[in-house]
């Protein structure tokens, strides 16, 4: 095949759908996935192909259809290839984790379908070992095919809490409790809105049935206020709607406060490829929408390459329907987290560097309105391994809550540099020099 190459990043439904659509139009497509197998967060397959995890039938069927289509297509699949960013001359950097090397590509277009970013609101003690994210625990569980052992507490807000709890119960270790911050209960209005996207209702009903059987239905209006180490375990203080506090002693805490689109690695200079984002990476609407959005992303690429894409209103209609369903679903949850102004000084904000809210507060106490850049450099917020990907939102919102004037943007703390994730030096040194003499 000749002609322009298109690179698709992310082997979830959006990436696979985009790659298939492009291949059908005769484009030379390479699909890169950082993990050992395709699937993404939702269809993640165990690393060991002989293992399996329990997933809803609808998910299983959808993934089987995608896998079959992929096997019959011209899409080239590169697993264990991580997208590391776009460098100054416009080259796309991929860390090839099979061979431990860095490779560059210069595609005509790049589809970023890397999925959403999981959001966790700071709470005292969230940096302790044993505190994980709900999504992180789910990855571990789907990769190994086993439930995490010990007593696990799930807390925060969002449909993912119930999904993880049910999957753990199916694998033989139900969580000790599921604490949902939002007190709102499912109303008829929400159910009515979801009738147009019945897959959600079927999925939720399946999870809830599992939780009824294991006796771990979510407790609504309850949140975690602090986590502290105790006797080699974690003592978790939780507060209910009436303000009553109690303590739970557990081995692990899984936190989750919603999902955010992922804009990492998408800024590029004048030299870079044409970029589109697709799926939860662009707008968090779930797996069904991701399939449609992958096709829309592919069509945008085809239009850019001067190819007329077949007129098809299907994907756009699916997106509209899923957007409505997600909006209805989101009314049931409370992603606000605790007001940072109410958190104690010792609360760690930047977990990479162990920087606390008190240290951030002291930087703001002066009359001088220090900039986000100064807070970042001198306070070392956003300077650690994650480069602010997980703390920038909280630093920015806390600064905004403490003073008047233009609120700082998380983007001033995260920046737009590559690599988008840490890359081993051993991989860099394999890059062949472009100019032999220096």
């Amino acid at each position, binding site marked *: 095949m000749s002609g322009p190459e298109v690179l698709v990043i992310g082997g979830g439904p959006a990436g696979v759908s985009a790659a298939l659509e492009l291949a059908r139009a005769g484009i030379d497509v390479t699909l890169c996935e950082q993990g050992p197998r395709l699937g993404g967060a939702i269809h993640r397959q165990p690393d060991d192909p002989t293992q399996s995890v329990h997933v809803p039938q609808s998910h299983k069927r959808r993934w089987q259809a995608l896998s079959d289509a992929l096997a019959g297509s011209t899409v080239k699949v590169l697993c264990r290839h991580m997208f590391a960013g776009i460098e*100054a001359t416009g080259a796309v950097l991929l860390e090839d984790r099979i061979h431990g090397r860095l490779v560059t590509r210069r595609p005509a277009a790049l589809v970023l379908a890397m999925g959403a970013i999981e959001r966790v609101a700071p709470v005292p003690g969230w940096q302790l070992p044993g505190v994980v994210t709900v999504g992180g625990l789910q990855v571990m569980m789907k990769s190994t095919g086993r439930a995490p052992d010990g007593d696990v507490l799930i807390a925060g807000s969002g449909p993912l809490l119930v999904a993880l709890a049910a999957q753990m119960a199916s694998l033989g270790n139900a969580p000790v409790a599921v604490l949902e911050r939002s007190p709102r209960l499912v109303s008829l209005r929400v159910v009515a809105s979801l009738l147009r996207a019945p897959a959600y209702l079927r999925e939720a009903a399946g999870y809830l049935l599992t939780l009824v059987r294991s006796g771990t239905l979510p407790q609504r209006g309850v949140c975690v206020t602090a986590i502290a180490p105790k006797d080699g375990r974690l003592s978790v203080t939780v507060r209910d709607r009436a303000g009553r506090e109690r303590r739970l002693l557990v081995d692990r805490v899984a936190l989750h406060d919603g999902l955010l689109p992922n804009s990492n690695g998408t800024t590029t200079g004048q030299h870079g490829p044409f970029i589109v984002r697709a799926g939860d990476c662009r707008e968090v609407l779930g797996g069904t929408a991701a399939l449609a959005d992958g096709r829309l992303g592919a069509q945008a690429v085809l239009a850019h390459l001067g190819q007329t894409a077949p007129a098809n209103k299907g994907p756009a209609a699916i997106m509209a329907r899923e957007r409505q369903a997600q909006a209805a679903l989101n009314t049931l949850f409370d992603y606000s987290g605790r007001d940072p102004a109410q958190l104690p000084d010792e609360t760690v904000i930047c977990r990479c560097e162990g920087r606390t809210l008190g240290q951030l507060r002291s930087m703001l106490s002066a009359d*001088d309105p220090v*900039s986000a850049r*100064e807070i970042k*450099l001198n306070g070392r917020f956003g300077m650690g*391994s994650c480069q602010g990907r997980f703390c920038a939102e909280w630093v920015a919102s806390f600064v905004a809550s403490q003073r008047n004037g233009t609120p700082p943007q998380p983007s001033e703390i995260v920046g737009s540099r590559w*690599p988008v994730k840490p890359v081993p*030096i051993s991989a*860099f*040194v394999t890059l062949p020099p472009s100019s032999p003499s220096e």
Partner: protein
Amino acid sequence: MAVVGAGIVGMSAAHFLSRAGWQVTVYDTGVVASGATGSADGAVSVASKKPGPLMTLAVAAVKFYEHLIATGVLVDEYLPRSTFVVASDQEELAVLERHAGELEAADVAIRMLKGAALTQVIGAAAPSAIAAAEVQGEGHAVGYRVAERLRQLGGFAIRRNCRVSGFESTNGRITGLVTEHGTEPADAVLLATGIGSTHFLADAGLIRPRKGQLIVTDRAGADTPHFPGPLMSCRYLVSKGSQPAGAVAPSRSLGLVIDPLRTGQFLIGGSREDRDDRESADADVVAALLRDAVALSPSLAQLRVIRVFAGLRAATRDGMPIVGRVSGADNLWIATGFEGDGICLGPMMGRLCQQMICGEPPAQDISALDSARFGLTLATAA
């Protein structure tokens, strides 16, 4: 007193001028340390200097950092330590020995390390290293931390995001600054504007951007060999010395320094490139630097790169900073063009600017930096 530019030179000058009784306001297009100061490697070092006025000033500037620590102006922003210049072949060794002799002639303490002493002191050096010169009595300072300390000490005002576009003057004296937020009165002006100086000077080609790219790693594990201080490759000195006089500088050169930071991370740099695309680092330069770094210290291969960044140095036509007056106004001074030496020279230059502006005899001979050598005049636009 208006100081234009909130980099290390401007902030230091504001500090000393305010202590000398001036009411000082610092103006910056961006924020504190948003230019070269915020993206520098922080070497307070004479190790790579050639003999001449810059080496003499750098030696004095290192002592000035010690003075600032002793007098409490700086607390822990300056970390004293040696620099190790490493030779890996006979050609580099010959250059290293000559260079060490030149540094000793300038009263810099040097210890030559070879054989068992070399491996004992620098466990992290590759077996291919045959010798190293330990340049003693110098150190490291993070530019933005020095600027932040001076800001915290206060005594002067800072106007961020306030671009100065020109001046109002009467009878050959500046009376005010024209800013994007209106005109501000000023009795005297110091331009410490780095690469932004081009805007104010009639000779637009006098100061050119020289890009540098730097790499930050994650923290080293417990098994990483010992780095007693930054390791500098002698190859840089070899290429520096081999250029015939008057030759056009190459558009890109790499001078490898592996700097162990206090956080346990490493800063690996840097390039010198005649270009001005500041906000971007390219994989080719980064990979070339990392190849050199791993050749000098193989254990680095196990670390990961978490950040790469680029900055622009302000380089003058003759490679020497410019400190002095700008003709066209009696009360206008400039201190710019420090290229890669701003963090080393900055605090002392702030003090020297204060002495120059107050009419005091300067503590160091800065006649070699005098702006008169270029006959500076104010740009008509300013």
